[in-house]
């Protein structure tokens, strides 16, 4: 187990390397720079700035300097927010994004599995049709349509919740609901299918034959098997939550890292964009690892040696 985790983490190093390399050269080869203001800077100041940020060195040298700093956990100074380093910005933004993301994930898992299991247990009843129908809607309608509609309905028309901003727990409700809705839909559909299959399987029939109460048969034996596809979906779910957070943070005006990414890219803030790419890639990799470990724990047939 330990060696497996270690090997996977080591295997992530080349992936990270590729990501950092592609991102670095893509950003640098693009036209424009962080100091291209509407009024051009004094050439002397420009020279000083370029020297301070190593822009006067050849690109490959800058690349190795960046890699060296990155290995030490230094993401560099932000170019558009002058007095902050990228790490400082993440110290503020990352907790916000993680808070929203993990809450959405948790809600999606709980609500999704409950709905999916209910639909499976009452297959072809109105409960089932409701769940499947709603799930189809949830999967098809994109986040950037749901978000403004919810904000309009609950924020502007009803006035129950703030339509945007960040601060109290009330500010979190709409973004979290927006992010979790499509995930709930997918999780519910997956759970439904897997539970129906699990209920027909041999080990569940055996458990029934032993005379175990339905609660135990469904809750322990069927659902455990039904969780497998849900768990393997968590990896893609994390990725789509990250994508969704870019939209949701932009719409609701939340100071998380998703918004930094778009702003940073538009302002040619090289280090901020690089930092976001690194953090997000790391996040996806670690999440996939957790999923694989969970998978082995849930399904004894899977062994990693």
């Amino acid at each position, binding site marked *: 187990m330990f060696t497996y985790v270690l090997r996977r983490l080591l295997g992530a190093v080349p992936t990270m390397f590729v990501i950092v390399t*592609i991102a670095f050269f893509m950003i640098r080869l693009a036209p424009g720079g962080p100091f291209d203001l509407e009024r051009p800077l004094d050439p002397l100041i420009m020279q000083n700035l370029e020297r301070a940020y190593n822009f006067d060195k050849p690109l490959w040298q800058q690349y190795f300097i960046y890699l060296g700093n990155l290995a030490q956990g230094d993401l560099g100074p932000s170019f558009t927010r002058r007095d902050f380093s990228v790490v400082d910005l993440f110290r503020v933004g990352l907790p916000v994004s993680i808070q929203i993301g993990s809450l959405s994930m948790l809600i999606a898992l709980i609500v999704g599995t409950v709905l999916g299991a209910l639909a499976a247990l009452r297959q072809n009843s109105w409960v089932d049709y409701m769940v499947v129908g709603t799930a189809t809607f949830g999967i098809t309608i994109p986040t*950037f349509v749901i*978000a403004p509609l919810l904000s309009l309905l609950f924020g502007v028309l009803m006035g129950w919740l703030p339509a945007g901003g960040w601060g109290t727990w009330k500010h979190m409700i709409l973004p979290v609901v927006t992010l979790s809705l499509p995930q709930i839909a997918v999780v519910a559909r997956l759970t439904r299918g897997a539970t129906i299959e699990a209920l027909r399987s041999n080990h569940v029939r055996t458990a029934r034959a032993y005379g175990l109460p339905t609660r135990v048969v469904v809750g322990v034996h069927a659902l455990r098997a039904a969780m497998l596809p849900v768990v393997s979906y968590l990896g893609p779910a994390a990725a789509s939550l*990250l994508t969704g957070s870019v939209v949701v943070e932009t719409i609701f005006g939340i100071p998380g890292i998703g918004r930094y*990414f*778009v702003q940073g890219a538009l302002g040619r803030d090289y280090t901020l964009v690089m930092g976001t*790419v690194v953090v997000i*890639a790391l996040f996806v990799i670690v999440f996939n690892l957790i999923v694989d470990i969970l998978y082995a724990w849930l399904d004894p047939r899977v062994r990693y040696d």
Partner: protein
Amino acid sequence: MTDHILTEQPQAEALAVTAGRSLWQDAWLRLRRNRAAVASALVLLLLALAGIVGPSLVPHRYDQIFPQYVRVPASLEAYPREDRIIPDFQRSLDRARITIGEVELDGSTIRAPISDDEALDPRITRYVDRSDLFDNSRLEDADGNALSEGATSGVMVADVQRLRFLFGTDANGRDLLARVLIGIRISLAIGLLASFMALALGVTYGAVAGYLGGRIDNVMMRVVDVLYSLPFIFFVILLVVFFGRSFVLIFIAIGFTEWLDMARIARGQTLTIKRQEYVQAAEAMGVSSAGILKRHIIPNTLGPVVVFVTLLVPKAILLESLLSFLGLGVQEPLTSLGLLIAEGASNMRGAIWLLLYPAVTLTVILFALNFLGDGLRDALDPKER
């Protein structure tokens, strides 16, 4: 005995029909039986028609600005409203300092008897023409002929421009209906082109990897694996931000992110096709690798690939809308559904229609594409159900 006859007949019929059906005919029959898929196909056809010919059928261009109608609500009635026309007409005539009688509005022409102590100056029509609501204003006598010079009384006649905005107008005073139609065109076009791009790239890559096999296959698929773990949406955003936001670049960027699945599917297909006798026969005849790929392998991978493409189109449209929504897609005054939704979202206080119509349109497109894709998958690949 009667039972026997009743059960036997349909079976015989079914046998007779299946005997002469090809795979594609079979799929077509199955698809036609799927009502959701047929309805979706019709809806898509209508939407595609709306996107292709719609923009030239609506009376206003998508980038035409009507400064006097900014953010007017969607309505079946024509603008300007009746209760605005007459006061406006009177106000413009007042500036001419003449005596005005009863103003009459009849369809799209408005008339008012006017008189003055001196001879009427034909130049007073300018006061009326200056208003955005009226044009072609002229002076007539009581019989409808042009007013003779020196007359002191007559009728001021003007055409009222009556414009219909079925979907309302946006914050710049542009017809939302025209914009939604052009948005449909752009979104569908980018969706199709990007999917085609992904198709070409993925199938070629997958077929080459699968056909060559061995170490080359290993390396090629490892590359796909590494690319797979990249947060690709972020690379699309980077690409589009840094290299300009042209229409072409957007669909190339989307195509580049969506070809990975296609490559895997095509490779899997190729691995099975490669062992078929006809491929071996071609090899024995000395056909080159490129020739075999082009003639035998790629055409035969198309079945499952077609199914995948139909599910890829909504994904591509979604990605394009997402980019446009973030302000990274097509540029004003051109528009796409994502951009319209973004505009609607920022104008939703007081102008709900700006959000509602594009959002509903995009949702309908996505639904129809998904249903059609599911239907096609069921029809072409009954095992997958």
